[in-house]
């Protein structure tokens, strides 16, 4: 037979990238991506327009000239009730709430998870079950009892009160996360450390924690976004001076008197969402890896 090089399979298999299927798949993905990105695009262009330009009604049009006035107003001078210092006050309130809540909740939950995974004590499972059950009780049920508790502690309306609430409410999911992660680490490592004479804290700090970077990243992201985006606890347990950024955003957007300043509203919304967005973009890959690592073994 003559050498029919095109028909006789030989060597590397030719790759056909432009099949009907792949065009369909990628086409669908692109359309969906545009669909989800459209609101963000509208928000950004609107925030850069002046009010008269917005009134013309071309929602998707690019701004005639980039105008950052709305951004400055949203940050520094927009009024919420009596205060006219924009979102900046809320931003700093949110920072003061988020940073200690994230640190304290993760510090406590990681030790909880470690103890549950590696030092099972009598009643550990009961304790764990109760803790997890707490995650399923609707927040609304606990709102008022917590008001009373905070009032009796003398921190109702204070940032400290909010920090306590966030720390406690982060406990079930974080403990579950850390317990599962520590259970997935080889048990022999823990045994080796015990033979090497390390105690409860020695093993935790010198052996377990250095191996926990992926799950720590997950916990940090979960807590930062969760606490930053919280609205319910913020509006219930804080006062106007201590409102977190989300509550202030609501107050700016929903102010009932005067003209609706769409450009300011858009800028304020983007500003508020910037922190969780940044966290996701910076650590998205680590996040997925950590979630997978914690999910391997239960």
């Amino acid at each position, binding site marked *: 037979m003559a050498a029919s090089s095109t028909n006789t399979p030989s060597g590397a298999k030719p790759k056909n990238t432009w099949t009907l299927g792949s065009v369909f798949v990628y086409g669908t993905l692109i359309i969906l991506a545009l669909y989800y990105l459209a609101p963000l695009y509208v928000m950004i262009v609107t925030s850069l327009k002046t009010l008269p330009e917005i009134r013309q009604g071309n929602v998707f049009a690019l701004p005639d000239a980039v105008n950052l006035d709305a951004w400055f107003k949203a940050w520094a001078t927009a009024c919420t009730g009596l205060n006219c210092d924009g979102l900046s006050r809320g931003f700093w309130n949110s920072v003061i709430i988020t940073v200690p809540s994230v640190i304290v909740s993760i510090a406590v939950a990681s030790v909880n998870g470690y103890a549950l995974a590696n030092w099972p004590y009598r009643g550990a499972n009961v304790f764990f079950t109760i803790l997890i059950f707490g995650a399923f009780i609707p927040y609304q049920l606990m709102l008022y009892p917590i008001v009373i508790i905070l009032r009796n502690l003398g921190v109702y309306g204070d940032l400290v009160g909010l920090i306590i609430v966030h720390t406690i409410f982060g406990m079930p999911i974080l403990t579950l996360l850390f317990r599962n992660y520590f259970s997935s680490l080889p048990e022999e*490592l823990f*045994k080796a*450390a015990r*033979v*090497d004479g*390390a105690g409860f804290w020695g093993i935790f700090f*010198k*052996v377990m924690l*250095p*191996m926990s970077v992926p799950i720590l990243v997950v916990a940090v992201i979960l807590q930062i976004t969760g606490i930053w985006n919280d609205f319910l606890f913020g509006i219930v347990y804080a006062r106007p001076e201590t409102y977190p950024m989300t509550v202030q955003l609501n107050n700016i957007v929903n102010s009932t008197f005067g003209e609706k300043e769409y450009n300011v509203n858009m800028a304020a919304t983007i500003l508020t969402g910037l922190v969780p967005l940044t966290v996701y973009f910076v650590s998205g890959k680590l996040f997925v890896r950590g979630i997978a690592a914690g999910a391997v073994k239960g």
Partner: protein
Amino acid sequence: MHSVSIQNLDLSFGAVDVLKGLNLDIYDGEFLVLLGSSGCGKSTLLNCIAGLLDITGGQIHIKGNNVTWAEPSERGIGMVFQSYALYPQMSVEGNLSFGLKNAKVPKDEIRRRVDRAAEILQIGPLLNRKPAALSGGQRQRVAIGRALVRDVDVFLFDEPLSNLDAKLRADLRVELKELHRDLKNTMIYVTHDQVEAMTLADRIAIMKGGVIQQLASPDEIYNRPVNKYVADFIGSPSMTFFDGELKGGRFVMGDVNLPTEGYDFTGGQIDGKAIMGIRPEHVASGRDVEDAAYRTTVTAELVEPMGSDTLIWADFAGKRLRVRLDGQMKIADGDQIEIGINPAKANFFDAASELRL
């Protein structure tokens, strides 16, 4: 003096008894292998000795000290694990010195012991590497080094070679044997690999269901297994067992009638139902057939050439008899070969109790 002495050890998880009334004395400098299939309690026993599992009853003494309630680090043991269990974020040196730092050993003493271990195990050039940058064999050397630096009397090994490939396993096995010869420490070694057990051990404890079946030298266990389980467990391929009857000094199974002269019956000669076990390598073939008390011709149903020797499977007295032949014999499926059985090399067990007769 006994190096490790275990008295009436009980361990139960809830209602499940894992170890029950176990007694075991290990001599100073002895290499003892705990051998058994998975779930027999051998690793559990090792963890009890190490103090990693709290026992339910009994006592454990190490070097004359009652360590029943002592922490693992206080028992004077070093342990090597199957998965190496090296601390991934520490360098090799950090791994070796971690236990010493915890014990607040002075710096120059740590230096001295780490250097000595590195020299013995030839891991000096690796001291600054992380475990991830080491091969499997190197990792296991570091793990052994971690036990070595502790300067302890008793080494515990929990299937240390199981994660290595066959060639490396054979190499490290020899190294372990040399290490034991040079250090003369007591070593307790858990494995399910009978080759490791036979080659390394001074004594082997064969376990089943949390009970030690036989505790004896490899030679004794191979040649005089106390019961059918041990006989079946040791040897690869294992013995072929025949059900039959002992009658007037002869073993009868169907048409086959074997003399038993030369077999050392521990309880004297008896009559009754019995089991005969014979190892593939104890079936006589070739020139040895002439000396055998019983001779016959069988058909090789299946031939497994293994290089150094050849295994054949042949029908004999209603069973598939395994025979080990010289590897140079040219033999094919269906060939007729002459074999002989020597009662002195067979094993007889009571049919009911399965204990050695």
